[in-house]
């Protein structure tokens, strides 16, 4: 069944392109240290807000132009005519770097930020945080959602009513404010680099409730089906029924729900980091990088390259959403909206 779904995903042109985009993004995240020319926190204060360096083809080599700072107050750079530095490939454990002795020279494919750090490098390293947060988050959400939902639906009675009231309680909490409060309460006990995990776990432990609801409903209908009665009749245990008979029959829902909720985690992390409550400097994440773009200077002086993390968030979220939609159409053709 899972294999069939996967084959149909590959046959659909739209979902195939989403899969390719996502695969590329994840590959970039995995190989970030190799693909990026610098460590993510290397600064160059003389080259703050440096625009993307132009790459030219000269003397049968790819070379980057050298820039000089013409107006430090407005961070204005101008290329020096005729002066270039060649790019070296596969050097020092990196895919590419500059072939020069000058340690102030930089290749900025996507410009630099307020402290002269390479945006391209930080995008790749930030992807590691922003892309894994969703995966870790949904595995917690879906596990909790399935266990609580299926147990409630299958056992019924007291357990069901207690758990469902608890779910009501969780659903009634405004998520953003709870996160803010949690972040404030937890902050003293965790170093800022561990905050990442705390945020995922906090997000996941709030959002499992809605999937538990749906799973409970599905379990209620599945447990009435005769193959569950048959399993009970042959003496199958409760947990075996849950995992052998109920889980496989809700797995397609879990798959779709998981795909559609990954973007929520990515956006959640972005929102928190944007507010300064998520990942802390000098770590990189897309939300944190985007928060630099909120300063008036960036806005007025049109440093567009600082908005690239937003663009990547946009692409990732769209890709996951479309993938989820196509998955849902495959799993449940009756929900299909287009012919």
């Amino acid at each position, binding site marked *: 069944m899972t294999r069939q779904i996967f084959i149909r995903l590959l046959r659909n042109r739209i979902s195939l392109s989403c899969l390719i985009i996502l695969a590329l993004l994840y590959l970039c995240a995995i190989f970030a240290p190799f693909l990026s020319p610098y460590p993510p926190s290397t600064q160059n204060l003389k080259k703050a807000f440096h625009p993307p360096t132009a790459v030219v083809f000269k003397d049968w080599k790819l070379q980057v132009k050298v820039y000089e700072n013409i107006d430090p107050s407005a961070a204005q750079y101008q290329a020096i005519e005729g002066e270039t530095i060649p790019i070296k490939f596969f050097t020092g454990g990196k895919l590419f770097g500059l072939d020069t002795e000058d340690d102030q020279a930089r290749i900025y494919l996507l410009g630099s930020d307020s402290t002269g750090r390479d945006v391209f490098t930080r995008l790749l390293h930030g992807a590691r945080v922003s892309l894994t947060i969703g995966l870790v988050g949904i595995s917690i959400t879906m596990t909790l959602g399935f266990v609580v939902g299926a147990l409630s639906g299958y056992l019924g009675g007291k357990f069901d009513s207690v758990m469902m009231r608890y779910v009501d309680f969780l659903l009634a909490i405004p998520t953003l404010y709870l996160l803010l409060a949690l972040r404030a309460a937890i902050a003293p006990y965790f170093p800022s680099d561990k905050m990442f995990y705390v945020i995922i776990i906090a997000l996941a432990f709030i959002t499992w409730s809605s999937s538990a609801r749906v799973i409970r409903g599905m379990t209620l209908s599945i447990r009435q089906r*005769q193959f569950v009665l048959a399993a009970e009749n*042959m003496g199958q245990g409760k947990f075996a029924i849950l995992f052998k008979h109920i889980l*496989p029959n809700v797995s397609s829902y879990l798959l779709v729900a998981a795909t559609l909720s990954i973007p929520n985690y990515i956006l959640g992390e972005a929102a928190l980091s944007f507010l300064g409550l998520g990942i802390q400097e000098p770590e990189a994440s897309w939300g944190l990088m985007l928060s630099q773009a909120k300063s008036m200077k960036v806005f007025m002086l049109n440093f567009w390259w600082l908005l690239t993390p937003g663009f990547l968030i946009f692409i990732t979220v769209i890709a996951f959403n479309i993938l989820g939609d196509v998955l849902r159409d495959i799993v449940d053709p009756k929900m299909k909206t287009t012919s």
Partner: protein
Amino acid sequence: MSNPENILEVKDLKVHYPVKTGILQRVTDSVKAVDGVTFEVPRGKTVGLVGESGSGKTTTGRAIVKLAPITSGTIWYNGEDIGNLGKKPFFPYRKKIQMIFQDPFNSLNPRMRISRIIAEPLDIHFKDMSPSDKMDRVVELLKKVGLDESHVNRYPHEFSGGQRQRIGIARALAVEPEFMVCDEPVSALDVSVQAQIVNLLKDLQDELGLSYLFIAHDLAVIEHISDDVLVMTNGKIVEQASAEDIYENPQHDYTRKLLSAVPKL
């Protein structure tokens, strides 16, 4: 107490579901699904249980295997009182008493291969059996119910209704039961397929010495397979006689009505 010739004796069985009303969920009434049913199933024989929808026949069958809660009454199986056993002590009887379900499209897990479906009771009751022995047993069972060895790796949706009911029967037979509750096993099937399944059940009875409680709403099917017939309506048994007597000389009004509903050529 009980007659050793009978494999199953049911005495004054009641299954009542409480009706709760109001905020405090007080029990104000009860639905009497089965209301004082008494009958016995002789060893190696088939007892037919017939009645309209909602008459309590399925609930009676389910109460015997503890899929429905028993309000009162006793059930003797081979002289042992099994009606009041807890979950653990009842476990051995889950092997001896098997059930065949009404809806062949619903009684097999759509996400499991045939080999796993039939081997599931083996996993529970024959934990020491090796995987290859289990596979041999599955193939043997498939052949016994008239299916092919090549079917083991298929999924239920690849089979017709009649074939699925055969798979259901193979699953029930896997643990070598003595007694089977057949809950309308042919109601969902075409008439021609009904005859095949009924004949298969009869052949298996002759071969394995099984006893059946055969539940149906169709008197024609019941008459064909049963030795004794129970007629049930509104949770009570209104007539109890041998299959011929029911046909030749129905006593109760309700039985006459049921008989007049059987299409004649």
